[in-house]
């Protein structure tokens, strides 16, 4: 064994995170969406979610949301034990309805942004972020 204990732990943790793939959509995620939208229909378009396709570090994944005219945008990481990430509320004087933050992802999963638009309708955008061991790029 020439691997240090730390490396072995690192590998083992990676393994733990990856063996339980793919993460199921947590029931809590559905509940949070229900609470936010009151069960309203979610249309595509009107909200933009920017996230990396593959996370460079699953512990701190930069994401950005924007929805012109929205009064609130909710962000969920559906595969996390606690899916709720944040809800950004925008007052009537907000110059733009956009926000960026960094989130922690337990494994490969869908990140979802739901915006409450000016007319009271709801829009959804979703993006799969992969969390990987990596190491074999050409």
């Amino acid at each position, binding site marked *: 064994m020439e*691997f*240090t204990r730390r490396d072995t732990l690192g590998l083992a943790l990676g*393994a733990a995170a990856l063996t339980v*793939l793919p993460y199921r959509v947590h029931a809590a995620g559905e509940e949070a969406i229900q609470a936010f939208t009151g069960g309203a229909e979610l249309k595509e378009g009107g909200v933009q979610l920017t996230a990396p396709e593959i996370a460079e570090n699953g512990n701190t994944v930069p994401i950005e949301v924007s929805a012109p005219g929205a009064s609130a945008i909710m962000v969920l990481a559906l595969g996390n034990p606690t899916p709720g990430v944040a809800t950004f509320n925008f007052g009537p004087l907000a110059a733009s309805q956009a926000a960026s933050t960094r989130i922690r992802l337990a494994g490969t999963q869908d990140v979802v942004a739901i915006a409450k638009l000016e007319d009271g309708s709801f829009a959804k955008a979703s993006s799969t972020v992969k969390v990987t061991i990596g190491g074999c*790029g*050409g």
Partner: protein
Amino acid sequence: MFQIGKLNQMISRRDFLQVSMAASALVGASGFGNWARLAAQQALTQDQLLEFDTFGNVTLIHVTDIHAQLKPIYFREPSVNLGVGPNKGEVPHITGEQFREFYGIKDGTPRHYALTYNDFSSLAQSYGRVGGLDRVSTVVNAIRADRPEALLLDGGDTWHGSYTCYHTEGQDMVNVMNALKPDAMTFHWEFTLGSDRVTELVEGLPFAALGQNIFDAEWDEPAELFKPYEWFERGGAKIAVIGQAFPYMPIANPGWMFPEYSFGIRDERMQELVNEVRAEGADLVVVLSHNGFDVDKKMAGVVEGIDVILSGHTHDALPEPVLVGKTHIIASGSNGKFVSRVDLDVQEGQMMGIRHKLIPIFSDVIMPDPAMTKLINEQRAPYEAELKEVLGQTDSLLYRRGNFNGTWDDLICDALLSEREADIAMSPGVRWGPSLIPGDDITREDVWNVTSMTYPNAYRTEMTGEFIKVILEDVADNIFNPDPYYQQGGDMVRIGGMGYKIDISKPQGERISNMVLLKNGESIDPAKNYVVAGWASVNEGTEGPPIWDVVESHIKKLGTVSVTTNNTVEVTGI
């Protein structure tokens, strides 16, 4: 054959004919075939290789993925290069006879040898080595004599991949490439020199260092050292060249060596930049990319307004551009084996026509540029004795490329199993590394050409059967995820001492089955520990001897290397 799409709006039928003629000029002009090998070589001339009917008002010259190969080498193209999802069976995922049929290449011709794998060893005897930057220089000079304002664009993976590049920390390549006078460059393996060295080298470059997707990791803002794009005025046209570095650097390579940087595809920023340069009056938008071919194809469909993508990373060599919407994608091979010449007719903010030729650098046909030969030899002189030391011989063709295995990695895995006394060996699915033909000496330089890197330590550790499966599933998804944006552009990790079955059409977690320990024929037990030896770990602090020492010791013990056909991976879902 040529994908037309919306192009007919911009390019006349006449231009199309010119495109296809240029693509077949090499075969058409030389006019031989039927395995007339010696005649073929005698008939092949530098003039034929360079023959090009100058077109339009702008010329681009593309080189990429040279991997520090200063001297001529052999390079066998893959026999297995599978596409998935929308790219199943599409270029560049065709090989061998299928490839030759698709492009109308006759058996036994120079293009057969240059572009496909069949009969490689025998054709290599006739056609000889390829590449060599002194030959590349001759080609570049000839194109510049024809079109003095031609832009030379380097797609990256230039400062990595050889004994001298490792020992000079990329300086040999910088010196030689600077003499070639590129106009811009983008990056991948360069970053494995570490961010301090990258900064030092990039700050000294007399040309543009580009990467719109190279970001400061802390602030998630564009990194100051790299410009997103550079402007050029050529042939009366205003040209924007946008750089796109390899998107998955900190994932596929050790991020701890360049923690200040973040990457990603960032196609939304690419669109913003295309819009920006168009608004500032760009007549032509070129992307110098290290995305890999399938990622470039997808990006061309997502981002509007790119005229030409010069594609690198996945080492594909294509004799014709591939058209996605209005974007032409050019793939120029690797290891100095090819140079692409792309002539464009650009008028009033529109690309009106294209003529393209993938020029194979046959080193026995193209005269070396003596000034460049001298410069290359100067870089190598301090190391000549070490480079030339003969470690053994090979009876077999040694090559790397292919999705699942190649004989070089079979040999490296054998070295790991025997020198490190392991049950199972792992060798990374990188795509660089030249070939050797049967009867060749194996020198230290040859071993370094397929192993050189800044994180070479050959580890030895225990892994459970379950964890080994997790690794295989993870790497398989990096190549066989049906969405190219989730692919990292490498091949499958090579495995020694263990066989397995893979269904490439399945999702992650379901592709790998039937894992068998070869030494006793027993199925791999998920709960049991196995001794695994491997190299190129991205983890900081990995311990073990450098892989080149392991391989060198193994070859010296063998004397003559013979690698038998590897049937340990069964592939389905093709």
